[in-house]
């Protein structure tokens, strides 16, 4: 499908969708959102490229091989649980460090759950794209 309208629109939509997916990912710690929904949305951005241009273009945009991306995401999610184990707590216990932000009273809490969510984001993104590419290449 090579529609000029779609191709032009994708160039503007792509950054917005990706940014919004990352916003959803980070928001998911305390509010609705999270790695799963963020990953799905991120995958749509690349899927649009696959529809408007070609699967090859979309793959080039992504830069990483999907299997490796999935493995990396899964590893990240697993290792975020191992941190608790190393600290002597049960597996998947959360641990965090507080980073003071100048000019704000509350420090920023960097928790292992964030890495878990990023891992989920990558896994969902890569699996969705795997399915989309496989169908698009048929």
């Amino acid at each position, binding site marked *: 499908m090579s529609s000029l309208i779609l191709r032009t629109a994708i160039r503007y939509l792509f950054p917005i969708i990706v940014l919004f997916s990352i916003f959803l990912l980070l928001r998911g710690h305390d509010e609705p959102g999270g790695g799963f929904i963020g990953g799905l949305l991120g995958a749509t951005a690349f899927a649009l490229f696959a529809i408007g241009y070609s699967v090859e273009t979309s793959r080039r945009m992504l830069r990483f*091989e999907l*299997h*490796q991306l*999935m*493995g*990396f995401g*899964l*590893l990240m999610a*697993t*290792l975020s649980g*191992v941190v*608790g*184990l190393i600290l002597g*707590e*049960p*597996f*998947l*216990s*959360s641990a965090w460090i507080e980073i003071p932000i100048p000019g704000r009273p509350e420090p920023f809490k960097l928790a292992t759950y964030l890495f878990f969510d990023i891992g989920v984001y990558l896994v969902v993104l890569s699996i969705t794209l795997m399915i989309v590419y496989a169908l698009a290449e048929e």
Partner: protein
Amino acid sequence: MNWLIISPILLPLVLACIMLLLWRHPVWQRWTALGGMVALVGCGAGLFGVVYVHGVQSEQLAGYGAPFGITFVADLFSSIMVLASAILGTAVTVYSMTNIENRRESFGYYPLLHLLLLGVCGAFLTGDVFNLFVFFEIMLMASFVLLTLGGERGQMEGAIKYVTLNLISSAIFLAAVGILYGMTGTLNMADLSNQVVWIAENRPEELPLLTILAMMFLIAFGVKAAMFPLFFWLPASYHTPPPAVSAIFAALLTKVGVYSMARFFTLIFTHDVGTTHMIILVLAGFGMICGVLGAAAQNEFRRILAFHSVSQIGYMLMGIGLIVMLAHRDDEIAHHAVQMGLAGTIIFVVHHLFVKPNLFLVSGVVERIGGTGELKKLGGFYKTEPLLAIMFLISALSLAGIPPLSGFWAKYILVLAGLQLEQYFIVFIALLTGLLTLYSMVKIWAAAFWTDVPDDSPVHNAAHMAHAKHGIRRMIYPIAVIAVIIVLFGVFAGPIFDVAMEAAAQMLDPSAYIEAVQFEEFSPTLGRGEEADS
């Protein structure tokens, strides 16, 4: 110590991820996979040691107490199963290095093998019914892909039957989990055990519904375990993938079903053993006879072995089914015999976990050299490969139950328990099945090993032989190691029986299992359990 319970699940997961990162390098994946399996054996042995010395161990993920959090429990039975699965996984990994072609390796064979082990170990160790479902699904997903990897016509045919029947059983499983949660308000196995006692004492009118639920779980696990009459996917699919995959399937998939059944029907559904366990016992008897007759009708190496698994599953269920006698007799002898029957099941599961895959591994070597699995076109392996022939004989005679090999002790214990409980009919079937098993094994022995080499066999072709012999050591060594394990299993039957008796005692008296689980103080359902006690 708490990392030890989680390690058999964590290790395969982390290694599968690492192997995905090494996607383009199948040779590196091989060695990562082998290292992972060896480490898994270490974890399994450590876990077994800790459980043997210190009793049942449990772990609440992220520190949330039961029944809210995710529970992992390791008792003797589950840690034995983890250890045995890891040992077999290591052997199959070495075997796969030669047996699995490069095109299959490059589509993620080794990561999938580890994910299969993840699902299997998870199912053995989980203390939560919903998590059991999740681990079942992980195992099934990995097995679906392993079964179809390569995409040959026969594989697809077998896979469709396998996938369809297993998806139906998963749906029944999930529905049963939903109803169980609606009835009891918990899915934690230890808590469920308390709840069933509470329901039996306070709401006896709900007991028939509980029996129906037990039957739903029986069907769900029965499909996975290839129990009579739900076994049709097994003979249709096991002979289609490469022998290494057949071996790991024969070792692990059905065992998880049997394990879950043993767990559920000793820990949770003990409210009406007269009905539920009688059904298991009857199905066990049918399974034994049906599987062995079905195998006798087959004429291909791996088809015989696959059909044969159905009858062996019957033996495993017999030990669970013998619990039925507790409904009729309450004396010391009956309790001891029931415990012995369950110990027989445990020994049989472990024995079969080594023997059946080893026969599949031998069939892989025979098919590689002989070019086919058809018994008519094979022959002369005793002359050309005497060592292989001896290893086949050890495994085959063990399967048939010839003393002093592992299969003899497993059957002896089950038969003895059956005699003490005066269940003569099932004992008769068990003995008859043993005899017919010998017939099937002798049939393979006579056709593939004992006869002369056929004239049109590819064995006479020098180029074929050079190709077939390349790397064959990596297929022979794992077979030899497992054959040694089988012999040692028979030699050390005494200590193994003692451990199995202890494991069976833990299962028949679930108080240690329940005490090991750390409950939350404000547990709403636990209060009901205490109410029942007072």
